């Protein structure tokens, strides 16, 4: 094991996959010599050159569409959309083209494209740079969706994403790039659809996404001091979703909190809740709780931003209310 930054984990995964398979290439805004806005591609342009680490004009629809076309014709592009908020401009290519063409061509097309992007609040970036939009993509049949919370998961899941023959939305978190964590030595991948039980516990299940995993663990630590044992689960990919692990945990604890930064309404927490109720309604001792972003645009001023994005306190409170 070695400890590295999340941004290094992303870079290492890209690098290893580019070395392994010459069809893999990168395209996006300022990913070359500049190394990406969050420095997740630093050094790759120097190593692989501008043919395989391609800076593009400021044209998200063209970035996404070009990646789809290249993927349909034998390459394996990783397209970076700088902020998930800007996928709006690329949406036709992601939703109507990448997600559909394989199917509509009767299986002729394989579209092995990865759309790398990042989401999340916490930097006073205001409402057009702080959203968490994973549920939009999870809604679309034909897209896989990964949300790594740790460097180890970022590396292992990204390598899997690159090797997958389906389009993958790979969603990083802007406040995780400079977090550190352990990464196994040598070659490894992490399969999609396998949740990680980050901490075992028997009183309450907390299912958290992306950076909220760290907050859930913080909450669990604090609650442990009061003798409350929280089980924290990170699904890691929401399409495919490892509902079995979540249901098994709920059957054990009888209590569920779902936590993410994305807006509560129609957030992915609602899908998890629905699936748990379909499978394990009678295991729930109390109605489940969602600790999610308020249904508001993310405001600029830090005091208001903190108010709309949940934190460890909110998870602690929700857990206690369930006991």
């Amino acid at each position, binding site marked *: 094991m070695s400890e590295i930054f999340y941004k290094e984990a992303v870079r290492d995964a890209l690098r290893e996959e580019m070395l392994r398979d010459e069809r893999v290439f990168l395209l996006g*805004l*300022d990913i*070359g*010599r*500049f190394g990406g*806005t969050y420095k997740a591609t630093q050094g790759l342009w120097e190593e692989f050159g501008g043919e395989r680490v391609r*800076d593009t*004009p*400021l*044209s*998200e*629809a*063209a970035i996404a569409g070009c990646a789809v076309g290249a993927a349909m014709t034998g390459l394996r592009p990783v397209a970076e959309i700088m902020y998930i*908020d*800007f996928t*709006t*401009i690329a949406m036709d290519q992601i939703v109507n083209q990448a997600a559909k063409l394989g199917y509509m061509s009767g299986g002729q097309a394989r579209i092995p494209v990865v759309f790398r992007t990042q989401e999340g609040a916490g*930097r*006073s*970036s*205001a*409402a*057009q*740079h702080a959203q968490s939009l994973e549920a939009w993509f999870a809604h679309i049949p034909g897209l896989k969706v990964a949300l790594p919370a740790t460097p180890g998961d970022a590396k292992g899941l990204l390598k899997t994403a690159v090797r997958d023959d389906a389009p993958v939305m790979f969603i990083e978190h802007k406040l995780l790039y400079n977090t550190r964590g352990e990464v196994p030595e040598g070659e490894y991948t992490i399969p999609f659809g396998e949740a990680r039980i980050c901490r075992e516990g028997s009183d309450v299940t907390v299912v958290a996404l992306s950076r909220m995993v760290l907050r859930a663990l913080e909450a669990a630590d604090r609650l442990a001091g009061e003798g409350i044992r929280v089980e924290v689960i990170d699904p890691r990919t929401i399409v495919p979703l490892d509902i079995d692990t979540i249901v098994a945990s709920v059957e054990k604890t009888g209590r569920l909190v779902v936590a993410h930064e994305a807006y509560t309404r129609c957030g992915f927490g609602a899908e998890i809740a629905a699936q748990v109720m379909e499978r394990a309604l009678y295991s729930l001792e109390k109605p489940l709780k969602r600790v999610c972003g*308020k249904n*508001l*645009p993310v*405001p*600029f*001023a*830090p*005091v*208001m*931003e*903190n*108010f*709309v994005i949940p934190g460890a306190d909110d998870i602690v409170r929700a857990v206690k209310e369930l006991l």
Partner: protein
Amino acid sequence: MPEAPPLVAAERAAHPLPADLLKGLHRTMLRIRRFEERAVELFLTQELPGFLHSYLGQEASAAGVCAALRRDDYITSTHRGHGHVIAKGLQLDRMMAELYGRTTGYCKGKGGSMHIADFSRGILGANGIVGGGIPIAVGAALSAKMRRSGQVVATFFGDGASSQGAFHEAANLASCWTLPILFVCENNQYAVSTHCGAQMRIPDVALRGASYGFPGIKVDGNDPVAVYLVTSDAVERARAGGGPTLIETKTYKWLGHYVGDPGAYRPKEEVAGWKANDPLPRYERYLIERGVMGEAEIEAVRGEVHAEVEAAVEFARSSPLPRPEDALEDFYA
């Protein structure tokens, strides 16, 4: 390679422009300069949250364009928008308060540096989505035309934004409907780290006007008088029903993309060359040579602007922070 029409030399002001106008341009540039210098300091000492995209070096562009607009004309702005909205008449104190995230800011702390708007001044908003404001401006121009209000619209955007599909669609639509709009491309040479030469294979964005069937004019964006003259012509044409104009102001952003980006991708000589072409001293020399202003008067204006900016900082610092629950206000859905 086709050449865009030549620079409009400031000398075209042979029939002299009114002194008030020339002095106004100067004061506007100074207000932008001082506001931006101060904002950068405050950002670096972490008094200001969020991102800051500095307009330092580009002052003549906003000043020249907005001086040719009426108070009720519209603009849309960008992530690098402080200069545009100052030139369109905003007060520095309420702007600074917005940068501080205070309740007295133009957007009550909900928008911040990248989203300043004041509809009462025709400012339909800065925008965090590159190219996002351009189609909105076309809509405002359509509305002005349908309401026969005589208003025109200036939409500011960068060289990078001209690669967005939204620009193409908006320009074409504005042309089809002969709308009263000015597409003002501020070519500061870079989109983040990407030089404009890597974003397009023509020397000037202005050349693209031809493909939409309206004039495309490039102008020295560090010369406020040249920018003003080109803009006035375009405004006149737009008001008279002549349709859109694309104006490309050639300029340079002094700092990196955002405050904190050292801008290492730029050759040192390039940065030095553009700094030597600082629009402010250059224009001050012009004013002095023409006898419009003397040294003493210029110095006095500097003092006033300095005090205005300090007062703005004081205003912002002493303004109340929003309450967390204020996030729930101004919201309808």
